[in-house]
C-alpha cells in the first residue's frame, strides 16, 4: 500500500550550472508550491516544489547550481548524494539544464550526470540568446549522439515549458549511452559491488568523494582509501584527466551537432560594464544604488511595520479584555501574541531587502559589485560577496546574515555572519535618538549640528568594529580552505518580477518558520521573567494597587498605574536579576534600573526605550520622546544623589548598544544559518564582552 502511494508522486531532481536559468524553470513549474527542507548533516537548504500535470503528481528537487560533480563544496556533495540515492531517496529521474550559449561548458556537468546512469533529459535553456548570437543546435543529432532527449526552452519568456511538461507527463526520460571512458575497471568493479551501484561511473564518483563525504562511515572511507592507494588511483589526477577527456569528446560531438555563430555578447553589455565596473564611476553608481535601496527600505517598511505593531497590540488588548482574566490569558495576550508580533514585525524589512537583492542578482549587476568590492574586503578576511550582508546589516542584521548564503568559503562566510550584527541597524536608532537627545546639546559647531554628528559617530563606530572584528577573526579562525574569487559575470538581463516576488516570499517564510520558533520561545521566557516574581510579592503589590486605585480620583489613576507598573517590574524576576547585576554594571555608570532595561532589551534593542519608560514610570505614552527625556533627566542615584543620565553614562550606554548583541532574533538567525548553537553563543558572549569593555572605557573617559 505504502509503495504504491509513494510511486504516485514522481520525484525529479533538477540540476544545472549557475546562471543557467534553472531557478526560472523550477519557479515556472512549481509556482508558490515550494517547500524548504534539510539534507541530513548539511547546512545547505533542500528546495522542493510540487506540481501536477493532468492527474500525475511530481516532486521537483532543486539541486544547488554547480559546474561539475567534483567535490569542492557542500553543493556538489549534495548533488552527488541525491543523484546516487546515498543516504536519501534516489529521485526517479534528473532534468539537466544546459546553457544554449555555453553548451560545451554545461555538457561537462550534463555528461557527468548522464554517466551516473539515472534516467534523464536535457533542457537547453536560453535559446533566445543563442539565436541572437547565431548559434543553432541540432537537437535531434545531439539526441542521437547522447541517447537522451533534449528540449529547447527560453524560460525567462515562458517559452518551451509546455514541451518540458509534456516530457514529464509522458515520462520520456532515458538512460544515456556511457560517455566518458573510465580506466581502473577492476577497482571500479570492486567499489561498485561493495556499494551496490549500477554504473562504474558511480563507483568512480564514490572514490573521488571519499575524502569529502561527511556522512560516510569510517570503515568504508578507510576501505576506499586503501583500495585507491593499492590501485594507484589519485583522485586529483583522475579529475584532471576526466575533465580534459570529457571536454575533448564534447567538442567533437558539438562540432557535428551545432553550427557556431559569433558567440560573443552584444556591444551594449560591454558599454554598460565600462561604466558599472569603472574604477570611479563603478563605485559612485554602487553607492547611489545602495542609497536608493536604503531610502526605499526606510520609507516603505515603516508603514507596514507600524501597522503590524498596531494590529498585534490591538489583538493582545482584545484577548486580555475578552477572555476571563488569569494566567493563561496573560500568557496568550502578553507572551505569545506579543512574541509573534515581534517576529512578524521583521517581515517588511526582510521582504524589501531581499526583493532588491533579487532584483540586482537577476539583472546580473550583483557579480559586478563583487568584482568591485573584493579588493577592499580582503584585508579584513572578508570576500567581495561579504559587502551585501554588511550593507544590509545597516537596515537589519537578520536579512544580512541570511544573505551570506552565496559566500562559498566557510571561513569568510562565518566571519561575515559574526561581524554583521555590529553594523548599525535600524533598531539602534530609537536608542541613540533618546540618549543623544539627553546628553548632547542641540547646538551647532562649525555649522554642524552636534546631535547629528553624534549619530554619525555611532554609525562609524559600528562600521569600524565590524571591520576590526573581521580582521581579528581572520587570525583566530583556522581554515584549510583557500580563498579565491572565480565568478562569472553574466550578461545583463531584465529582471523577472516573478523571481523577485518569490524570493521575497520565500525569505520571509524561512525567517518566520525557522527563526520565528526560537524568537517566540525566548520572548515568552523574557515575558515570564518580567511578569512574575518570587511568591507573594507580586500579589502584594497588585493588592495594594487595587486598594489605592479605589481611593483616588480619576485624574490620578493614570499616574498611579504607571508607578505600580514600575514597582511590579522591580519585584519581578528580571527586576531581581537587574539588581543582582548592578555591581557589575556600576563601573559603566548604570544603576539597576538600566540593568533591567539591558536585560529586557535582549528581546530587541528598541525595547530599551519601552522598558526605561516603564521602570521610570513614564507611562504608556512612550511615543512621546520628550516626556521620557524629561523624566530621565531628573533621575538621581539613590545613594550619591548624582544625576543618573550624565554625559558619561549616556555615551557609555550608546557604546554598549552599538557593540552588544542585544537581539534574540539575530541569535536565532545565526543559529539557523550555522545550524549549531556554538556560533550564536560564542558570538553573543564575545560581543557582550567587547560591549562591556567599550562602555567601561567610554565611561571612564567622560566621567
Amino acid at each position, binding site marked *: 500500500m505504502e509503495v504504491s502511494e509513494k510511486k504516485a508522486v514522481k520525484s525529479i531532481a533538477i540540476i544545472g550550472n549557475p546562471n543557467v536559468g534553472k531557478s526560472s524553470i523550477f519557479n515556472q513549474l512549481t509556482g508558490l508550491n515550494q517547500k524548504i527542507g534539510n539534507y541530513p548533516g548539511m547546512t545547505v537548504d533542500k528546495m522542493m516544489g510540487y506540481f501536477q500535470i493532468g492527474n500525475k503528481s511530481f516532486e521537483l528537487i532543486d539541486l544547488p547550481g554547480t*559546474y*561539475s560533480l*567534483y567535490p*569542492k563544496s557542500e553543493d556538489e556533495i549534495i548533488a552527488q548524494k541525491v543523484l546516487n540515492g546515498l543516504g536519501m531517496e534516489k529521485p526517479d529521474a534528473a532534468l539537466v539544464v544546459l546553457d544554449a*550559449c*555555453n553548451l*560545451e*561548458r554545461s555538457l*561537462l*556537468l550534463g555528461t557527468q550526470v548522464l554517466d551516473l546512469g539515472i534516467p534523464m533529459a536535457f533542457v537547453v535553456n536560453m535559446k533566445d540568446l543563442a539565436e541572437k*548570437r547565431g548559434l543553432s543546435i541540432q537537437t535531434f543529432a545531439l539526441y542521437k549522439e547522447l541517447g537522451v532527449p533534449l528540449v529547447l526552452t527560453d524560460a525567462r519568456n515562458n517559452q518551451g515549458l509546455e514541451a518540458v511538461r509534456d516530457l514529464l507527463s509522458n515520462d520520456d526520460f532515458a538512460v544515456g549511452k556511457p560517455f566518458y571512458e573510465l580506466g581502473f575497471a577492476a577497482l571500479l568493479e570492486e567499489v561498485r559491488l561493495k556499494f551496490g551501484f549500477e554504473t562504474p561511473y558511480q563507483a568512480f564518483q564514490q572514490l573521488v568523494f571519499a575524502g569529502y563525504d561527511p556522512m560516510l562511515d569510517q570503515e568504508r572511507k578507510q576501505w576506499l582509501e586503501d583500495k585507491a592507494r593499492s590501485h594507484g588511483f589519485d583522485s*586529483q589526477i583522475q*579529475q*584532471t584527466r576526466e*575533465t*580534459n577527456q570529457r*571536454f575533448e569528446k564534447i567538442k567533437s560531438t558539438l562540432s557535428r551537432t551545432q553550427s557556431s555563430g559569433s*558567440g*560573443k*555578447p552584444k556591444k551594449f553589455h*560591454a558599454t554598460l*560594464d*565600462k561604466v558599472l*565596473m*569603472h*574604477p570611479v564611476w563603478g563605485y559612485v553608481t554602487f553607492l547611489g544604488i545602495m542609497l536608493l535601496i536604503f531610502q526605499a527600505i526606510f520609507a516603505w517598511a515603516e508603514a507596514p511595520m507600524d501597522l503590524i505593531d498596531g494590529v498585534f497590540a490591538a489583538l493582545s488588548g482584545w484577548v486580555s479584555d475578552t477572555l476571563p482574566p488569569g494566567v493563561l490569558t496573560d500568557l496568550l495576550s502578553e507572551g505569545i501574541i506579543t512574541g509573534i508580533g515581534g517576529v512578524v514585525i521583521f517581515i517588511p524589512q526582510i521582504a524589501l531587502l531581499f526583493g532588491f537583492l533579487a532584483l540586482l542578482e537577476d539583472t546580473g549587476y550583483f*557579480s559586478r559589485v*563583487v*568584482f*568591485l568590492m*573584493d*579588493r*577592499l574586503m580582503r584585508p579584513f578576511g572578508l570576500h*567581495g560577496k561579504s559587502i551585501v550582508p554588511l550593507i544590509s546589516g545597516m537596515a537589519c542584521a537578520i536579512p544580512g546574515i541570511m544573505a551570506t548564503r552565496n559566500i562559498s568559503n566557510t571561513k569568510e562566510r562565518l566571519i561575515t555572519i559574526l561581524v554583521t550584527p555590529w553594523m548599525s541597524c535600524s533598531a539602534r536608532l530609537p536608542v541613540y535618538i533618546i540618549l543623544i537627545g539627553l546628553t548632547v546639546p542641540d547646538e551647532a559647531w562649525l555649522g554642524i549640528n552636534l546631535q547629528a554628528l553624534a549619530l554619525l559617530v555611532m554609525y562609524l563606530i559600528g562600521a569600524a568594529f565590524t571591520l576590526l572584528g573581521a580582521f581579528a577573526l581572520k587570525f583566530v579562525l583556522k581554515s584549510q580552505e*583557500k580563498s*579565491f*574569487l*572565480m*565568478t*562569472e*559575470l*553574466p*550578461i545583463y538581463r531584465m529582471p523577472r518580477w516573478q523571481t523577485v516576488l518569490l524570493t521575497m516570499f520565500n525569505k520571509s517564510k524561512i525567517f518566520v518558520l525557522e527563526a520565528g520558533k526560537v524568537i517566540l520561545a525566548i520572548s515568552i521566557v523574557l515575558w515570564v521573567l518580567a511578569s512574575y516574581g518570587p511568591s507573594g510579592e507580586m500579589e502584594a503589590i497588585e493588592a495594594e494597587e487595587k486598594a489605592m486605585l479605589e481611593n483616588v480620583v480619576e485624574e490620578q489613576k493614570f499616574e498611579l498605574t504607571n508607578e505600580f507598573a514600575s514597582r511590579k517590574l522591580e519585584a519581578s524576576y528580571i527586576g531581581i536579576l537587574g539588581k543582582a547585576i548592578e555591581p557589575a554594571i556600576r563601573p559603566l555608570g548604570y544603576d539597576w534600573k538600566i540593568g533591567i532595561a539591558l536585560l529586557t532589551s535582549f528581546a530587541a534593542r528598541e525595547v530599551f526605550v519601552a522598558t526605561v519608560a516603564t521602570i521610570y514610570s513614564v507611562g504608556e505614552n512612550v511615543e512621546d520622546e520628550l516626556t521620557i527625556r524629561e523624566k530621565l533627566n531628573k533621575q538621581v542615584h539613590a545613594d550619591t544623589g548624582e544625576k543618573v543620565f550624565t554625559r558619561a553614562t549616556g555615551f557609555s550606554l550608546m557604546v554598549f548598544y552599538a557593540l552588544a548583541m542585544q537581539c534574540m532574533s539575530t541569535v536565532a538567525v545565526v543559529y539557523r544559518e550555522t545550524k549549531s548553537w556554538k556560533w550564536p553563543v560564542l558570538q553573543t558572549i564575545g560581543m557582550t564582552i567587547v560591549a562591556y569593555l567599550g562602555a567601561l572605557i567610554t565611561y571612564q573617559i567622560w566621567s
Partner: protein
Amino acid sequence: MTATGLKINQTYEIEGISASPLMVRMMEMGVMPGKSISLLQKAPFKGPMAFLIEGNILALRIEEADLIQIKGS
C-alpha cells in the same frame, strides 16, 4: 606570460593552466588551453580582473589569473 600581463581589449590564446588545486575548477568554468582570452577591466588597487573567455566574462583575482599561461608573445 600569464593572464596578469594582458593588454586591455587584445585577444590572446590560453596555452595552459599551472598545476594548482584550482585547476579543475578553472577548467570546468571554461578556462581551457586553446580558448581565446582578453582582458576587459581591472578593479583598482590590484583588485580582481575581468576576462572575456570565449564569450563568457569571468572575474579572477590576480593570484588566479597568474595561473593562466598565455601563448606566444
